[in-house]
């Protein structure tokens, strides 16, 4: 039986292997009756996908409803976050394991938001929902009713991993990663291909940003690429350096959470911030520099 403190050996090559679990490991924990009291969360782009069937015992965490403030363009505050966690039976010491659709894109976003609140032990299921299903593992429509936990009200600490527009302006000249599609980066497109128009007045990218579409970090089956493949992309090809403060952005900060996870936890960069204002802020801001 796996100890939640012991990472899966296949992840040992990553900088922080404890941030990933395999589908096998998770299935084993569940079969063993969940001896370590982990809480499994599903975080998807599609708000109904969880309801069509999910990993037994998993609870839904929706990025819109649960993590975003409903009035201000910001994340929830410490009180709301404590309510969201407590309702799911999560305490400050709980091991939380997140999986989701689309290469864990929204799962990585949820993990990043939990990191703003300094939740210590939060991990992704490598390969996410697609891999679990591809392996023919059990799904259920039963929604568990966990006993509420008592999550403390913790102040959100944005500065270490979140960048605001002024931070990006001060960072110009330093390494930036634009994780959007090539068409968005070049300025031909003002929004993601096949996605709703989310409105930007200007197309292009932040001056000096390298273009590394986020999904390059994932294999066909949704798992993360090996460390050497990731180093090939981010270090050798793009010239990023783990010791340099780096900022990643996309359109609203969701795809760049995935890249933030890769740089921070898989490649061990010291200081990566996610600029969640991203292009929907930068592309609308007055007199900020834009490059095409």
């Amino acid at each position: 039986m796996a100890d939640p403190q012991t990472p899966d050996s296949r992840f040992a090559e990553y900088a922080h292997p404890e941030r990933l679990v395999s589908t096998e490991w998770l299935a084993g924990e569940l079969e063993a009756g969940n001896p370590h009291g982990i809480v499994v969360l599903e975080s998807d782009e599609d708000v109904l996908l969880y309801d069509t069937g999910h990993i037994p015992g998993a609870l839904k965490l929706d990025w819109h409803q649960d993590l975003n403030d409903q009035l201000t363009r910001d994340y929830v505050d410490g009180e709301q976050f404590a309510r969201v966690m407590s309702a799911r039976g999560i305490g400050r010491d709980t091991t939380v394991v997140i999986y989701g659709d689309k290469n864990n894109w929204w799962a990585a976003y949820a993990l990043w938001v939990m990191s703003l609140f300094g939740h210590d032990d939060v991990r992704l299921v490598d390969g996410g929902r697609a891999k679990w299903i591809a392996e023919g593992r059990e799904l259920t429509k039963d929604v568990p009713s966990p006993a509420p936990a008592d999550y403390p009200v913790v102040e959100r600490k944005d500065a270490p991993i979140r960048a605001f527009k002024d931070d990006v302006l001060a960072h110009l000249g330093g390494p930036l990663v634009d994780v959007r599609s090539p068409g968005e980066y070049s300025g031909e497109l003002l929004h993601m291909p096949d996605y709703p128009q989310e409105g930007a007045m200007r197309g292009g990218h932040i001056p000096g940003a390298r273009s590394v579409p986020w999904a390059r970090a994932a294999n066909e089956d949704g798992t993360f690429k090996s460390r050497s493949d990731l180093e090939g992309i981010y270090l050798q090809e793009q010239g990023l350096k783990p010791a340099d403060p780096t900022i990643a952005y996309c359109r609203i900060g969701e795809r760049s959470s995935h890249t933030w996870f890769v740089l921070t936890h898989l490649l061990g960069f010291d200081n990566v911030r996610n600029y969640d204002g991203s292009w929907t802020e930068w592309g609308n801001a007055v007199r900020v520099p834009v490059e095409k």
Partner: protein
Amino acid sequence: MVDTTGLPKALAEIAEDFAELPVPERLQLLLEFSEELPALPERFAGATDSMEQVHECQSPVFLSVEVDADSAADPAQRVVSLFFSAPQEAPTTRGFAGILHEGLDQLTVEEILAVPEDAPYRFSLAEAVSPLRLRGMVGMLSRIKRQVALKTRA
């Protein structure tokens, strides 16, 4: 009370059904609509190229509209059939399509063109799925109306 002014009867009934439910159950009803969305008829198999893509949706969604020229001499009274293709992994989008199919299929040209543009916001879903996601249904409805208008003029 939900505002059903100007909605065709079937769509108004759907709006009332949603409004009567607490928020979590609205999601379940949306899921039922997604499950009940009819499969595409044989003639559309592998032919999504001939359909219109709904770019406002976050998944590859296609729709097609047929106006039955034999159903009435007056173009405004002709019967409209709606067809949707949306992936199983996108149940929210399928649910939107399911609502529009159940509410609008087999209505007349006149009835469909009269559907208010803000109809997607009358299903009490903004709280349950977020207003941002509802834009997909707005896109579907406006594309349906545009196609119906085009095909009636032709």
